[in-house]
Structures are given as structure tokens and as C-alpha cells.
């Protein structure tokens, strides 16, 4: 039998076997690669190109850094001037908004106080303050148009302010609690001793008619007693600053808690308020009872 050999010393049968093997392996590989076989090549090429991509990214980053650092001084000055102008504008806007924000905060606090006291309180804005002058007072923007009358109590969330002294058609004047001619019926929180608060000026007042036998501590809270029928019982007036024994009575100096020099809005109590004011009654929500077995 003569065996024909081709180039590279392989016979025809060997070439056929080789072709068959390549055909079978090629098809099998194609089948194993499945759909979208290019993705394997793309993954492989992506893996190969990672070093060059990293080098290119570093090169680009270096160029960007060099470009940024090469900015001219004039550009930086221009930008600095622009930023300074923007900063000034923002500060001006902030300064313009600050009073309105403060008024909004005060209004929110007044609203909270109004919800805590179950009386018909009326809000008014402070137009002007003549407190630095002798017998100075506060001018409110509401008067008889709001139904105000003299001797109505005035308060803010920090404490009492004073009482209405005179009421005009559209404005009214407040006699602050630290005025020399002002008087408020008060009591001390711990000893429950009562007295009359008389103004000393500059946010201070003196409690009169407290017996020498009473024990009063510095820092003790001073509340309204409600006996003057201007303020109901229990509103904060201030805190005891000094205590000294006199001939017949204690000399108790009080720092009023309301910031009388920084008021923008106040609440006005109704005339002749009740002596005792209870906080609003809120019915507790019924607890969910576990359902009994067999109940519908």
C-alpha cells in the first residue's frame, strides 16, 4: 500500500484527521462561547488595555494639573474680586433679612405662648420705645381699633412686660413693669409670700410688703399673684437678685425676666382676667384595649 505524503511529512489521511479535529474543536468552542461571543474578546482586550488606560489617565491628570497651575495672576485677581463682590452682596442680603427673621422667630414664640394660655390674647407690634427717658414707655401699633382698654396686662414669652397706660384710636402706650409708678401684685415661688412689685428702672424692680420673717433666696422665681386683676396667677415676672433685711420688711430686688429694651411684638391679656388660669384641657387618647377572645 502506497501512502501519499504531502508537505511537512503528513499523509492525506492525517491532513483529513487534522481538518476534522479543527472543525470539531472550532465548532465546539463556538458553541461554548454562547451568544455574543465578542464579549469575551472585548473583556480580554479591555484587560490588555488597562495599563495603557491607566498611563493615559495619569498623563491627562498631569496635564490638567499643569494647566491649572499655569493660570495667570490677573485671572486669579479677577476671580478674587468677583468673589469679594458676591460676598458683600450676600452679607447685605443677610443683614436685610435678619430683622424679618427675628420678627418671625418672635411671632412663633408668641404663638406658642398664646396656645399655652387659655385666654383671648391679642398680638400687637411695638412701634417705638421711650424707655430711656424718664417715665418712658412702649408704643404699640394697636389701640381701640383692636378693642384695647387701659390696665390690660402685656406680656411676652419671657415674662410680663407691664400694663396698658393709655389707649388711643390706633395706638396705645404701655407702662413697663420697671417704671417707678408701676405696680404688679406678685408672689415668691418657694415661700408663696405675696407683695407688690414696684419699678426701679433699667429692668429692675423692688418687692414691697414682704415680712422680715419670710425666707427668700437669691435666684428664686417671682410670679404674678393675680390679686391686681391685671395678670392671672402664675405668670413669670423675674428672679430675685438681692435680698436685704429692712426695719419692717425685706428689701427684695428683682431682675425682670422680659427683655424690655428689645421687644418687637407683645401679647395683650383681656381686661379683668380670671385669677386662676388653667392650661387647656386635652382629653387623653384612649389606649387600645386588647380584644377579648370571642368578642366580635
Amino acid at each position, binding site marked *: 500500500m502506497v501512502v501519499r505524503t504531502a508537505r511537512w511529512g503528513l499523509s492525506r489521511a492525517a491532513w483529513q484527521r487534522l481538518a*476534522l479535529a479543527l472543525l470539531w474543536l472550532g465548532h465546539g468552542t463556538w*458553541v461554548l462561547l*454562547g451568544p455574543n461571543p465578542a464579549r469575551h474578546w472585548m473583556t480580554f482586550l479591555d484587560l490588555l488595555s488597562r495599563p495603557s488606560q491607566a498611563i493615559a489617565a495619569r498623563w491627562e491628570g498631569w496635564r490638567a494639573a499643569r494647566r491649572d497651575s499655569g493660570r495667570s495672576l490677573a485671572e486669579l485677581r479677577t476671580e478674587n474680586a468677583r468673589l469679594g463682590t458676591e460676598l458683600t452682596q450676600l452679607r447685605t442680603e443677610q443683614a436685610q433679612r435678619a430683622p424679618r427673621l427675628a420678627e418671625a422667630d418672635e411671632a412663633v414664640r408668641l404663638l406658642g405662648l398664646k396656645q399655652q394660655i387659655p385666654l383671648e390674647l391679642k398680638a400687637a407690634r411695638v412701634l417705638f420705645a421711650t424707655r430711656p427717658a424718664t417715665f418712658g414707655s412702649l408704643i404699640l401699633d394697636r389701640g381701640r381699633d383692636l378693642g384695647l382698654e387701659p390696665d390690660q396686662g402685656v406680656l411676652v414669652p419671657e415674662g410680663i412686660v407691664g400694663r396698658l397706660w393709655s389707649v388711643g384710636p390706633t395706638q396705645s402706650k404701655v407702662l413697663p413693669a420697671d417704671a417707678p409708678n408701676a405696680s404688679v401684685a406678685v408672689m415668691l415661688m418657694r415661700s408663696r409670700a405675696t407683695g407688690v412689685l414696684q419699678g426701679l428702672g433699667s429692668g429692675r424692680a423692688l418687692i414691697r410688703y414682704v415680712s422680715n420673717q419670710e425666707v427668700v433666696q437669691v435666684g428664686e422665681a417671682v410670679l404674678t399673684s393675680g390679686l391686681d386683676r391685671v395678670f392671672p396667677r402664675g405668670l413669670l415676672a423675674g428672679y430675685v437678685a438681692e435680698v436685704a433685711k429692712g426695719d419692717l420688711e425685706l428689701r427684695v430686688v428683682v431682675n425682670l425676666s422680659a427683655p424690655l429694651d428689645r421687644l418687637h411684638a407683645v401679647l395683650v391679656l383681656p381686661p379683668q382676667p380670671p385669677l386662676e388660669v388653667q392650661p387647656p384641657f386635652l382629653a387623653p387618647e384612649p389606649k387600645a384595649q386588647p380584644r377579648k377572645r370571642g368578642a366580635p
Partner: protein
Amino acid sequence: MRLAAPSLTRQNLLCAAALGLVALGAPFPALQAVFHAALVLALAPRAGSPLFGALWALAAGWTLEGSLRLYPHLGGTAWADLTLALLAGWMAGRWPLEGLKGWLARLAALSVLHALLVHGAVRVATTAHPWGWGWFWALLSVPAWGWLAWRLLHAGTGPGRR
């Protein structure tokens, strides 16, 4: 008694005719599966050289996949056909045919193996897919197309004709 091999021309003509039937039988999947199995298992393995048989089997697989729209066209069928054709050719050389019954039994076994391998390869190439009933009809009709292939391949080739 060893049977003589059929002529090369006749085998290739029969393969070409079967391939045409596979292509034309696309509207009838059951018939197409029968033609496909006959080409791959009975005709291609004896088409002259193993390389020719492999090419006929590959053509059968790609024709089947190309004629079915909802079938994955990723060569799974062609690869399975190639493998089975090579296996059948090797079996023909290793265990020569000696009669019609042995031929039919061999075709039935190869049909089962062919169905499993085709669907396995298609699944590997893509994902799960419906098998259909083509394998059943091919297996059921083994006596018919096996006898026909026997008659056509070995007719007039010598003492092996029956």
C-alpha cells in the same frame, strides 16, 4: 458477512437530496426532524471520507438552525450533528454492518443519542429551550427511513444487497 461500501456519487447525491428536504421541510417540523436524522445518522457517515461526512453533517445542522425562526442560531445543532456523524462513521468502521436488524438497532440508539446531544449542545450555546416532538417522530420512523437508506445505499453494491 461484510457489506460492500456504496458508491461515492450515490452517497453524495443522496446527501444533497436529504439536505434539500431538510431545507424544504421547514414548514413541517416533524418531517424535517426525520430528514435531518436520516441525513446525519444514515447518509452522511458513509459519504466517502470522514471529512465529507462531517461537512454534510455540518450543513444539515446549519440548515436546520437557519430554517427555524425561533431556534437559537449558534451552531449547537451543527456541532452535535458533526459529532454524531463522526461517531457513526467510526462505528461503521469499527463494527461493520451485517444485516438490516443491526442497522436499525444502531440507528435507533444513535437517534436517541443524537436527540440528547443536540438539545444539550443548544442548551450550552444559549439556554433552556423547548424540545418539541421532532426527536420522537425521528425515533418512531427509524424503521422507515432506516430501511429506505439501507435500500438506497446498498442497492446494487454486490452480495450485500437484500
